[in-house]
């Protein structure tokens, strides 16, 4: 009996192990931003269905962490919720890593209050800055301090945690410097915590990715944002985000492809598949697709092997992708 058991175990192990060491035709290592992850993973999942002999792994170490690996040549593709930074560009030149930059979708940031809040009709970027800047810490505590017509009730803030790309983008767009923010607010990487907090707090205000607002529409109220006092108040939706009207709180998300990896046929196939599916899948995972032309231009960029970043020395805040890409592709 015992011998029989031993034999089966050995046999089972061999079967299991051999399946672990299954020969793949190719491997694609992807890592980076947690906010691009859902999209890339959705694309990879669909891709695997048709190409089971290609092994794709998608990691989540944040945009910065992803670039670190990418610039050491450890990954083929890096997910990024912001363009590559000047410092990272320098590193890429030093390490001789060339890359192709491909925008894949838009993410809008929603400014939300509780449905019980009746006095906030819109908010300007300057007012947002007054609420969120590091100088406001322990000073700006009441709504009235932000706009004199608002009541003198407590201001409770809810926002992204410090390790998320949303935090980096929001602080840059509103406070002018990435990671510059007051610290006395409810900070969480888990957007559901923020949804719960704002929805149950009549004097709360929060920000997070538009996808989470869409999922919790009935519990929250979206606040239109004015670029300045004279501009029109804009509600984030497909069209305002795609056309760059919802500013400065919409951002493109990218994948960066290692130029050497781009020579491999299965990587080419994957990128082609990615750009074909990105529009449809962005919507499925809660993001906003780029205009069709941008996907075309991006694919052109990839096939022509145009390396480097269109955002070198440019801020992504307020940028128009279509314009940038069509100039750069020529």
């Amino acid at each position, binding site marked *: 009996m015992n011998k029989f058991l031993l034999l089966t175990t050995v046999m089972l192990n061999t079967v299991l192990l051999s399946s672990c060491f299954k020969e793949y035709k190719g491997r694609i290592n992807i890592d980076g931003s*947690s906010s691009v992850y859902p999209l890339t993973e959705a694309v990879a999942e669909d891709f695997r269905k048709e190409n089971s002999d290609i092994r794709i792994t998608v990691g*989540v*170490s*944040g945009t910065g*962490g992803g670039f670190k690996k990418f610039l050491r040549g450890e990954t083929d593709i890096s997910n990024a919720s912001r363009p590559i930074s000047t410092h990272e560009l320098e590193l890429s030149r030093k390490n001789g890593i060339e890359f192709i930059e491909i925008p894949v979708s838009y993410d809008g940031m929603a400014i939300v209050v509780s449905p019980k809040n009746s006095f906030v009709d819109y908010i300007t970027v300057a007012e947002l800055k007054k609420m969120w800047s*590091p100088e406001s*810490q*322990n000073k700006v505590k009441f709504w009235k301090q932000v706009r004199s017509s608002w009541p003198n*009730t*407590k201001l*409770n803030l809810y926002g992204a*945690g*410090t*390790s998320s790309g949303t935090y980096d983008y929001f602080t840059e767009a509103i406070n002018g410097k990435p*990671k*510059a*923010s*007051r*610290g*006395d*607010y*409810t*900070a*969480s*990487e*888990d957007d559901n*915590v923020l949804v*719960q*907090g*704002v*929805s*149950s*707090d*009549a*004097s*709360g205000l929060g920000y997070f990715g538009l996808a989470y607002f869409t999922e919790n529409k009935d519990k929250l109220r979206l606040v239109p944002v004015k670029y300045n006092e004279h501009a029109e108040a804009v509600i984030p939706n497909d069209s305002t985000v795609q056309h760059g009207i919802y500013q400065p709180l919409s951002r493109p998300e990218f994948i960066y492809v290692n130029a050497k990896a781009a020579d491999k046929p299965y990587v080419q196939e994957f990128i082609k598949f990615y750009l074909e599916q990105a529009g449809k899948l962005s919507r499925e995972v809660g993001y906003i697709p780029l205009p069709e032309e941008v996907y075309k231009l991006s694919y052109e960029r990839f096939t022509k092997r145009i390396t480097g970043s269109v955002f070198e020395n440019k801020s992504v805040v307020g940028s128009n992708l279509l314009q940038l890409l069509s100039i750069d592709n020529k």
Partner: protein
Amino acid sequence: MPKTRYRKEKIIEWVMILCSMVSVLTTIGIILVLSVDTVQFFKEVPFARFITDNQWTPLFEEKHFGILPLLCGTLLTTTIAVSVAVPMGITIAVYLNEYASKNVTAIIKPLLEVLAGIPTVIYGFFALQIVTPVLQTIIPGLAGFNALSPGLIMGVMIIPYITSLSEDALRAVPNSLREASYGLGANRFQTAFRVIVPAANSGIVVSVILAISRALGETMIVAIAAGQQPRLTFNPLESVETITTYIVQVSMGDVPQDSLEYRTIFAAGITLFVFTFLLNNISFWIRKHYLQRYE
């Protein structure tokens, strides 16, 4: 024959020693791990800043390392919990011991023990989804995350700790005292609260202290319902962050290990550990010095 028996006895003894060593070694291991990183932490952050700064923002650009806001959140929720649990817990214990008939005790006691068996994550959601909205209808200014609601629920959670330990203490009071009290013409209420409770004082105090240290270390309830905003306040209507919540927050996010930010959780952890350690020792000391006074 006696030899094998002797050997068997030895083996059994060793197994027992090993078992108790596991817990002792785990404790030593925890203390070591905590201290190594805490020492590292205090090399970078002066201890004076740690205990005097009134802001806690280690994850932000402008870093402050004042433990006071976190400590304040922890003490606030614990105070609320204890002020619910102590009167309720002792009253229940007195009722079960002095008033209730055997049949009633047989029903209530197991029910109380069920309270202790509810997973704390469920208490947390109960506080967030039911208690907070109900409280909001009574107190309009109450924030969605606040210290009050998890504090109250935590109080309910620790009632069984106080009740069962206090009941043991009450039962240990010799019947002669009870009889003497009745003999002097005292009624049941006077006997219970003027004679029996004071006589069982040391045991009750121990139960309260253990309940306090349980509340200090409670994590899930406050992590879910109290919010994540370190704030130096004793206002129970606002959201606070406790030490335990902060540790959860950092361990779940992607704060790089082996960084100053990561080490803050060890410094925070050891602060909590010092508190519960002191409380446990005080309760141990009280038990040792006062328990036999009335026997």
